[in-house]
């Protein structure tokens, strides 16, 4: 094992193109350490970002929230204005692991790790977040919902580092997130869903039901067209075009898809009641 410890961004980006082979960037380390005891070989190289200055920012402007590469869930929980502006980000942050994980785990790491169960990605996606990627050659910005290409696969090139996440500010009339884990806290999502509604229309994202966290565009289109539902099954038939759950150690495909549609159905049903509002 080798740990590279650059103290500035330029050096970090340069180390990513070294001929010795691409190191794995490490921020909070909460995903990498889970698998540490089961590692195959000890010759992995890590790019430790902890000494790179300027990566822990959390900036809320009139137009957007900018999250740095090393900004943690806890940073956002503690930033009252940002948490108020983006309540689902704060809720998702609280649902990740325990406080020890929340204080180390980073939003950018949640994206880079590419887990289909990522809670942070779920919330960022329904807020229309984009990912800022930087390399020695260029800086580019990719919408989060176009970032993933498959299970733990993304458009990020090995020479690129996620240096920031930009979340645009919009006026929302509906914001909702639900996570179903095997227990109430400290659990990996078995199925999760987030929904927002702004003047741009509905956004629905789900986790643990596809090779990566995904938007449910068929359902969004139906909602945007004013469709209402009389049973969870109706929601599910639309979702079947958007998701493809699998059975693994944590749950079954049937459970995941069924619970996803039931959560959405009953939440939408509450909106139809006189007390609900959109």
């Amino acid at each position, binding site marked *: 094992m080798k740990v590279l410890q650059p103290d500035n961004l330029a050096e970090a980006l340069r180390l990513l193109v070294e001929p010795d082979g691409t190191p794995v960037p490490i921020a909070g380390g909460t995903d990498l350490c*889970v698998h540490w005891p089961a590692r195959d070989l*000890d010759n992995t190289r890590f790019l430790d970002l902890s000494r790179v200055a300027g990566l822990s920012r959390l900036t809320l402007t009139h137009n957007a929230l900018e999250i740095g590469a090393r900004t943690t869930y806890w940073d956002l929980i503690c930033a009252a204005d940002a948490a108020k502006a983006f309540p689902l980000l704060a809720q998702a942050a609280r649902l990740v692991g325990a406080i020890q994980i929340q204080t180390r785990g980073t939003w950018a790491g949640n994206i880079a790790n590419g887990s289909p169960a990522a809670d942070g990605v779920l919330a960022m996606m329904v807020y229309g977040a984009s990912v800022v990627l930087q390399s020695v050659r260029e800086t580019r910005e990719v919408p989060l919902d176009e970032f993933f290409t498959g299970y733990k696969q993304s458009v990020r090139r090995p020479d690129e580092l996620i240096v920031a996440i930009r979340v645009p500010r919009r006026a929302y009339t509906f914001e909702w997130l639900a996570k179903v884990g095997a*227990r109430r*806290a400290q659990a*990996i999502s078995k199925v999760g869903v987030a929904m927002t509604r702004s003047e741009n229309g509905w956004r629905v994202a789900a986790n643990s039901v596809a090779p990566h966290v995904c938007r449910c565009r068929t359902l969004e289109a139906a909602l945007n067209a004013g469709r209402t539902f009389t049973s969870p099954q109706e929601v599910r038939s639309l979702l079947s075009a958007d998701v493809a759950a699998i059975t693994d*150690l944590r749950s079954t495909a*049937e459970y995941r898809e069924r619970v996803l549609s*039931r*959560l959405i159905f009953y939440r939408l049903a509450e909106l139809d009641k006189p007390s609900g509002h959109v």
Partner: protein
Amino acid sequence: MGIGEDRPRVDGLDKLRGAAAYVDDLRVEGVLHGATVRTPAARGRITRIHFDPGIPWNEYVIVDHRDVPGKNHVASIETDQPALVETEFRHKYEPVLLLAHRSPAALRKGVQGVRLEYEPLPAVEDPLAGLTSDRIQHGPDNVFKRIDIRKGDVNAAFARAAHVIEGEYRTGAQEHAYIEPQGMLATSGPDGVTVRGSMQCPYYVLKSLCAALGRSEREVRVIQTATGGAFGGKEDYPSVIAIHAALLALKAGAPVKIIYDRQEDMAATTKRHPSWVRHRTAIDEAGRLIGVEIEVVMDAGAYVTLSPVVLSRGVLHALGPYACENVHIHGEARLTNSPPYGAFRGFGAPQTLFALERHMDAIARRLGLDPAEFRRRNLLRDGDRMATGQVYRDGVDLTRLMDDALEHAAYAQRREEFKRFNASHPYLRRGIAQATFMHGAGFTGSGETMLASEVWVEGHADGTVEVLTANTEMGQGAFTVLAQVAVDTLGVKNEQVKVAVPDTHRVPNSGPTVASRTTMVVGKLVERACLDLAAVVDGVAGRSFSEKIRAWHQAHPGERLVGRAKYKTPPEIHWDDATYQGDAYPCYAWATYVATVEVDLRTYGVQVTDFVASQEVGRVINPTLARGQIQGGVAQAIGWAILENVVLKDGAMANTQFANYIIPTSNDLPPIRVFFEEQPTPYGPGGAKGIGELPMDGPAPAVINAVCDALQTSIHEIPLTPERLMEHLDGADHD
């Protein structure tokens, strides 16, 4: 502080400060780290062991079965389990080779550098599946143990029954999830072999070490280190690691430490026995049990280990606290090609009591009776005979115990309230239900007689008293309770009594720390040994007990002042192992637990929202510790009922991480409200009964009965994960 008082834990401060030394905290000069190479499949024959030529093997100590100087087995009830596999293996993760190296990193590479080639053999996955001859590995039919309990005439009872109701129930495996994984440190020198580590039963470890090393008890010494939880998981398995560490230390001529990480611990060590129980019950017009047939099958795993006695406790609790004159209980422990299932808090009783208490609710529903009323008609009353003929004479009014628990839980009001709630809510359903049960304290049948446990209480020259037992503190508070008994019996101050660290060269064999026996059986021996000590110094002059001890030592320089007590079977207790008739346990703790639940039909998740645990325990020695035992047991049992799912692959656990094996956090648990009734027993110190296992028995049936109440259905299997509840409701008869 004496009996009945809230003395703080004697080991508490050291553990809070981080000063207590667990086995991996021990620093030893020149220590080597040891690791285990394990089998990759459920059953097979090893054909070749391939060592990666890129690894400098001369740096490693390598041990295989040929290095075992004594018998290559782990001595337990039987001797069928090898310490190290020779050729044929019977389960995945069975130990084949041991490696030791000074560097943990090099050790890791070494383990990865060994490849076992093997020829697979047909494996048994399901103990209920039909057997083919090529799968038989024990006796004629893979059955490790059969037990039959008969009373009255069952056939005649079924012939005149007004109702006959059947049910089949299953329970899953459970991981102990102690905080400290298993580990041992072995050293060898001119005096012999010393093994220190995390364990419940130093004399069990000693016995198996002597057999495997071919040495006498004087040449082997076993010392318990601070133990971070056990729950039965450190009853038999520590013998395996102790043998392994000792074999490496002997070959290396250096100290060797083997510490399992969480994944290895979960994969290779024991779990609770999965079970299948079938009930067939005859009931008369008045709603009374007139005939009961119970069939119990426990999945024992690949070797006998403790399964015969787990099965025994299971069948002895299978009829619970109910009276019935015609009974046939048949139990079998059967081989499968899984790592051996082992001791786990409750020891077979939680499995059969889950089936019984679920079945009692299912019967009540079929008869249209309130489950409490149905139980009221059938609970044991003084003079009734239990399944083995044991006469119920505890003098505990079980009906009142049950009714008090229901009152604490506002059972009647909530039932009404929940009916209205469930009729109106779109997706939440609430339910309330109970389980009434008991747990026999101490070893089963003639076990205590055969153990013949011994306790010493020594008065030292400085006036202090030391309690010498082999019983271990593993987080449950045993040292505190034993100290309280001594303080109370001798009338001395807290600081004048200390409890010895179990060390087989210093303490007598007071038996294992299992079976809810430490407080009751060993505590009673401490009480008697204290009285024996007091009798010796009775005539000595002195204002206090301490002064008398000091005066005695002045008069007897160089001599030891020891009070002794040895277990004697009470004359009124009779047990016949051949017929399974008689007093199965000297006494029982009795309980009714009431669970309130809310089921979310969006997610099929069950949340227990309130829990009443009411029990009769003889005498409470330390109220806070007793409450803690009950709450901890309830939490562990709620986990077993609805969360903890051991996923098997090739017969062994696949989800070997706390990320995937889910135990409850405080967020997943209700307030656990504990109530004690006290009716002193003559068999325990100050009247105390054992309570360690009791709280593991009742929560699962109470919680699942409450789910059945909420959903008006009948569920037969735990763990009731949301996925399983969803499938059940898809196919449910909604009876």
